[in-house]
């Protein structure tokens, strides 16, 4: 066996044999650090162990592995274990692969747990659009826009905050002026009316970062010298 396979085997065995919560978390972190796709299945399995330390390390590891683990994650998202699904969703959101879109859209607007809505929302702002054909891209971006304009009115401040970060990400990714204008409007509404100061400030920062993109062309009469 190569050194890499030896290491993988050692780490897998350590996860299987861990006999304490802290030990499991450390073993999962070591396994995740290998950045080896062959570890993905075990990392996903540990999402269901009800050990937050281990799950955080596994999610980090899965996000680093990226797109190749998406089919495995999607399979995990069929499971009945709510905790495991929530962690798998965080990994999916962190990867930004468009194959996760349908699920992220539903979760961001529907899930009962606010931390899961928050994570799914964040994922909608970092989708790797270049992985889609231009036509599919436009349709999907329209869907994401509709969902996010709903999410920025979530009853929980942290979900609204994530919604603002995500609409900013979407606005950066698209060229369509009507989408950018709709996002600008929704940000201005948050700045003026959100009851939470932190959310208003984040919307303001989003507007500042989008300014170079959304600045209108100077009107003709302003260009004409006196």
């Amino acid at each position, binding site marked *: 066996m190569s050194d890499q396979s030896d290491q993988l085997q050692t780490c897998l065995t350590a996860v299987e044999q861990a006999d304490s919560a802290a030990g499991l978390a450390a073993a999962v972190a070591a396994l995740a650090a290998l950045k080896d796709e062959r570890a993905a299945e075990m990392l996903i399995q540990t999402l269901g162990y009800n050990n937050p*330390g281990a799950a955080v390390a596994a999610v980090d590891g899965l996000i680093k592995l990226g797109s190749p683990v998406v089919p495995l994650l999607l399979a995990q998202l069929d499971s009945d274990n709510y905790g495991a699904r929530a962690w798998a969703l965080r990994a999916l959101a962190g990867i930004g692969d468009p194959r996760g879109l349908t699920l992220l859209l539903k979760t961001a607007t529907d899930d009962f747990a606010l931390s899961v809505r928050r994570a799914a929302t964040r994922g909608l702002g970092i989708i790797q659009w270049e992985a889609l054909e231009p036509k599919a891209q436009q349709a999907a971006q329209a869907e994401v826009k509709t969902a996010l304009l709903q999410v920025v009115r979530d*009853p929980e401040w*942290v979900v609204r*905050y*994530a919604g603002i*970060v995500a609409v900013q990400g979407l606005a950066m990714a698209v060229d369509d002026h009507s989408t950018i204008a709709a996002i600008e409007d929704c940000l201005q509404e948050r700045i003026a009316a959100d009851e939470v*100061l*932190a959310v*208003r*400030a984040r919307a303001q920062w989003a507007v500042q970062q989008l300014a170079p993109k959304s600045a209108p062309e100077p009107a003709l009469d302003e260009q004409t010298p006196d």
Partner: protein
Amino acid sequence: MSDIADAPPLTIDQAIANLQQTDDPGLRYYAAWWIGRFRVNHPDAIAALLAALEDEQDRSPDGGYPLRRNAARALGKLDSSLAVPALLKCLDSSDYYVREAAAQSLEMLGDPAAVPGLLNLLAGGVEAAIAVPDKPHLVQPYNAIIEALGTLGDWPLVPEIIPFLDHDQPQVRNAAARALYQLTGKPEYAERLVEVLYCPDLQLRRSALMDLGAVGYGPAAGAIARTLAENSMKLIALKGVLERQLCPDDFEGRLEDYAKRFDPLSLSAPAIETMALMDSLL
């Protein structure tokens, strides 16, 4: 009010009626909680909560007053000038948890008139702050009292609180550090809370996160983002830091009141750094 829309199937009228009746202590207890949770700012609700503070019917096996505890907690969430004198009276209750709830609610109500009453409970200083035999608590709810004094009080309280920095219980030490930072603005006190973020006990790290967020100590932002705890709690703490950074130094009111006057062009570099940290934790 989105809160009320999300409420379980109990109407405001029903909740008030349940709190007014005395036949079913269970219904009454739940109604007191519900009225606080959904902030039912109705004069009848407040009158019924004030009456519940005098209840003699609902007693726990050790002589406590469960209904009074819930009523005292609920009053902290409602706007009524009648609540402060009633809660001050609760500070003399024989029930530790009624005193604790009253101190917390007095802090939330923000009326400095509560300071002398709260200070009375620190009589005897740190030497008197010992455990009650066979109970899981000290003789007074020191955390709640000290935190409330930090929020409501002024600098003359500093010498009263400094000795509690050396209490045996880390939670009491944290409360003292938090209060002293609020009273003096000296970073050395907030830095004590930052150190707790590196301790091995998760509960203590969580409580230091909440304290640093509550006082909005800006230099802690990076340490808050890095500590080992749930992102949800770190985000709440960083929200507290951010909102303090957004607020001008000379603003002396409640941050919620400042939100209405927010100047959108006032984002400072530290506020932007804090938001970048928050973004990374979503």
